[in-house]
């Protein structure tokens, strides 16, 4: 990412939503920023890390989101402005801390940025993290554009200091990753010196009185937010239909209204401050119309809030008709779009939205499908996880006791798909792999005989797996822990983690290795290179055959993409066309169909397997799976060690 301190104040520039969030934080004078990577949030901290030296601030990738927010809170207690950013899942990780911090209160401005992922573009769930604001009674801001990202971040820090509590800003994938013109403001000339007056204590006791104070803070926030100018109405004075929208949905609603040509009939109330709701504003607009449509992603967060408000004032407001997730006019899952909202508007207003002829769409889809090669989620060429899950597949098949793999979060979550031979039987959240395995491993006494393997990546190992491993060790559960150590937080963009020893800003950190941690816990541990399929298979089989207690296997091989950056892999691969048995292999294209490395394909014309020299990275693993020995690896002269 770019050093955002180099932007010229007042000069309009193109910024990604996440960059605008980071720039807003810098303009607000943030002194500490911490995060755990996760799409779509990662670029926020990456931008801040690349700006840290120029700005003179501290930025870190933390071991997990809870630690990140706690670090930010520490800075806040000293009077500094601080922030933690994360994807929606991360909010769950730090929820316990949030629900206590909101009672203890804060000093320096502190902002939690959650970047949600409607449509689950790169997530294991589609959770609407806005509910943390209701749960913990925190102010919530929802920007619609990168410019608003910047402005709202500046405002969020101010608001936090004014009320003495955490403020939540919610982005979404489309906003975090869109680029638009933003006019940066000035950066602060100085920041306060951190100091924590030892006479001041930050805690939650006495809880009930402090809870009352917390609610007063929220009410105060509501008053400040209503004057902030982030809520805006565009439309006729007495619209036939009022659309209440937030975030990108507000832009979609405007586009849908224009497309249908109903600007004179439809009013658009765009809310940027979505908790607490601006009751006066809403009551005014509810009084001006008979029909209301809600446009928001994912859950009916605003919809339910407005309906609750309406219920309190129904006698004065009279009968209204509400449309949204509850009536099926907007979907409660996935992303919204101008098309979806045009359809909803048309349905309510009795206007047929201008749509493309379905037959035409069908023809286009057919033509496009013919041009685009099938492309599924898959491990990269040379990915060590392919070799690791190959070993798990082979070993559990030959073991013959219906063994299970309790998966976890990372690139290797893809093992639930054909690329990983569908060898992950369960995948939920960070650290849940060994947790679930721990429970399974306690069922031996009740007749559960299936072997259990759990997989965690190296970053996940430090993020959330350790408590589950400790629990299993303590309670003597019975499973095989496989640490898929590719020396990177690969899924989210190769951010460093405790196992890599590097830090967010490039400063050298202390490298921790999983085997030392495991040995300290008394977990027997063996390190194997997954590229050595025979050795991996043998070690894994032995670990599966052993029983009683947790035993670990660290399958260590650097991420193929990281290796590419380090000078590449050692081999140039080829398929000996004379040796390749082609259709007569008796294996029905074993290499390209079953092993599924994208670097291998079957040449229909030649009737033989081939290496795609553009895609193949030269890891050499596939030489071990060809029954004819036709796949050959020639050492590359220029290869890195």
């Amino acid at each position: 990412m770019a050093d955002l301190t180099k932007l010229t104040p007042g000069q309009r520039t193109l910024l990604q939503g996440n960059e605008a969030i980071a720039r807003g934080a810098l303009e607000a004078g943030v002194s500490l920023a911490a995060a755990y990577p996760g799409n779509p949030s990662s670029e926020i901290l990456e931008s801040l890390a690349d700006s840290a030296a120029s700005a003179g601030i501290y930025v870190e990738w933390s071991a997990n989101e809870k630690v990140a927010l706690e670090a930010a809170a520490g800075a806040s207690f000293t009077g500094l402005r601080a922030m933690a950013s994360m994807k929606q899942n991360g909010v769950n990780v730090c929820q316990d801390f949030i629900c206590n911090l909101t009672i203890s209160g804060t000093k320096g401005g502190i902002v939690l940025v959650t970047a949600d992922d409607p449509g689950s573009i790169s997530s294991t769930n589609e959770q609407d993290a806005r509910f943390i604001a209701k749960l913990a009674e925190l102010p919530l801001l929802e920007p619609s554009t990168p410019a608003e990202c910047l402005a709202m971040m500046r405002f969020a820090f101010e608001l936090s200091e004014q009320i003495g509590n955490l403020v939540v800003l919610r982005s979404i994938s489309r906003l975090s990753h869109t680029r638009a013109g933003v006019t940066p403001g000035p950066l602060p000339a100085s920041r306060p010196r951190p100091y924590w007056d030892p006479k001041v204590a930050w805690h939650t006791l006495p809880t009930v009185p402090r809870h009352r104070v917390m609610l007063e803070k929220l009410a105060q926030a509501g008053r400040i937010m209503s004057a902030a100018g982030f809520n805006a109405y565009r439309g006729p004075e007495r619209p036939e239909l009022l659309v209440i929208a937030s975030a990108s949905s507000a832009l979609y609603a405007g586009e849908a209204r224009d497309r249908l040509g109903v600007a004179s009939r439809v009013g658009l109330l765009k809310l940027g401050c979505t908790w607490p709701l601006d009751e006066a504003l809403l009551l005014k607009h509810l009084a001006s119309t008979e029909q209301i449509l809600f446009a928001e992603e994912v859950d009916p967060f605003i919809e339910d809030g407005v309906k609750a408000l309406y219920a309190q004032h129904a006698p004065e407001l009279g009968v209204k008709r509400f449309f949204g997730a509850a009536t099926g006019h907007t979907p409660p899952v996935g992303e919204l779009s101008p098309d979806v909202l045009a359809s909803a508007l048309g349905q309510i207003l009795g206007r047929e939205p201008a749509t493309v002829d379905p037959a035409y769409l069908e023809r286009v889809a057919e033509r496009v499908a013919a041009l685009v090669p099938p492309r599924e989620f898959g491990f990269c060429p040379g990915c060590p996880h392919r070799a690791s899950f190959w070993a798990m597949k082979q070993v559990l098949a030959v073991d013959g006791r219906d063994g299970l793999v309790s998966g976890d979060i990372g690139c290797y979550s893809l093992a639930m798909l054909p690329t990983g031979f569908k060898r992950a039987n369960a995948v939920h959240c960070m650290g849940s792999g060994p947790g679930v395995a721990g429970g399974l491993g306690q069922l031996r006494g009740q007749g559960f005989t299936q072997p259990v393997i759990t997989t965690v990546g190296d970053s996940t190992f430090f993020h959330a797996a350790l408590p589950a491993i400790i629990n299993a060790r303590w309670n003597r559960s019975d499973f095989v822990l496989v640490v898929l150590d590719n020396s990177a937080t690969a899924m989210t963009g190769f951010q460093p983690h405790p196992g890599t020893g590097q830090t967010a800003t490039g400063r050298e950190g202390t490298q921790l290795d999983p085997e030392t941690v495991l040995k300290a816990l008394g977990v027997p541990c063996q390190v194997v290179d997954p590229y050595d399929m025979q050795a991996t298979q043998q070690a894994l089989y032995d670990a599966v055959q052993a029983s009683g207690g947790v035993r670990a296997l660290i399958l260590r091989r650097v991420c193929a993409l990281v290796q590419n950056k380090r000078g590449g892999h050692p081999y140039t691969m080829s398929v000996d066309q004379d040796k390749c048995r082609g259709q007569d292999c008796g294996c029905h294209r074993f290499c390209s169909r079953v092993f599924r490395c994208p670097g291998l394909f079957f040449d229909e014309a030649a009737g033989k397997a081939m290496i795609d020299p553009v895609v193949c990275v030269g890891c050499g693993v596939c030489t071990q799976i060809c029954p004819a020995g036709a796949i050959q690896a020639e050492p590359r002269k220029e290869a890195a060690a």
Partner: protein
Amino acid sequence: MGAAAELPAAEACLDRLLSQVIAEGLCVACGACLGLCPHLIFLDGRVAAPDACGLSEGRCIDLCPLDPAPEPAARRQRLHQALGSSYLPPIGPVQQAWQGRAPAADLQGKAQYGGVVSELLSLALEEGLVGEAVVTVAGQRGAPQGARARNRQEVLAAAGSIYAGGGALGELNRALAEPTDHPLAVVGLPCQVLAAANMKAHPRYPAAAQRLGLVVGLFCTMNLPARALRGLLKEEGVQGPVLKSDFPPPPAGVFQVWTQAGLRELPIAKLRDIRFPGCAFCPDLTAELADLSVGACEGRPGLNTILVRTPAGAALIERARERGRLELEPAAAESMAHLKQAAENKRARAAQARTERQHG
């Protein structure tokens, strides 16, 4: 249209093997299906196929001796006919019956009983009758696996019986796939000898018919899954690697195991509990489809019984006798009678097991 779309819609061969043999618990780890394609894998005495192959005309199910589809007697009659011999229950065709031993000093204490199999293989290799012999050796974790012997030393390394499924025929398939033309020998249990006959008679396996020059059968009392045997020995407190094991002929009723700590005897009932379920359906005590079959000699622990079944078997025996490599005497009539009775008993037990299975 891609070749994949041209695949016949018939049930895949591998699916049949998985559903009719492996999932049914019938597999005895002979290895006949191994080494033909990469789908079938073998580890620690177990055969598995984690992926679908999609081909309907693979040989794996055709070669399987446990394929329940052909009626056993009809299959054996067909194979004898294909090999030019006769189906003659209860112990198959026998041109000559001997009892004897190999006097060579280097075999003493290593080979089973009289060391006849090791000596015959060694002789066949030395005199170029075969280029390689596929045998069973103890591999990782003591589990048996196929190996190739090319000289006497390698034969001696494989000497002694391993009463656990070793998948050795996978090694035979791999040897037959190599671009060489030297004849091969294989030593196997009755199930493996039946599979070897399947290979030689298979219309799409010309290499087997051309190169499988010598099939030596072993009398088989019982074949055991490697993992279960290891578990039983652990349970019984038998420590360390097994140096030698034996089912001495009736009425011993025990399984003998030698380790560094000495001899341990386990009741044969405990072994029956863990044996391959598929063995219950085997009617063949003496490997009837071999060129010659070798086993224990009743009441004579230092000797083998040898049943010579084919001209190739007879020629090898004759050569061994001429070279002084074997000391032979005609098999005792009483011993042969007992052998036939034991074979009849096994045949009857198999028939009963098959009937019970068919009728649930």
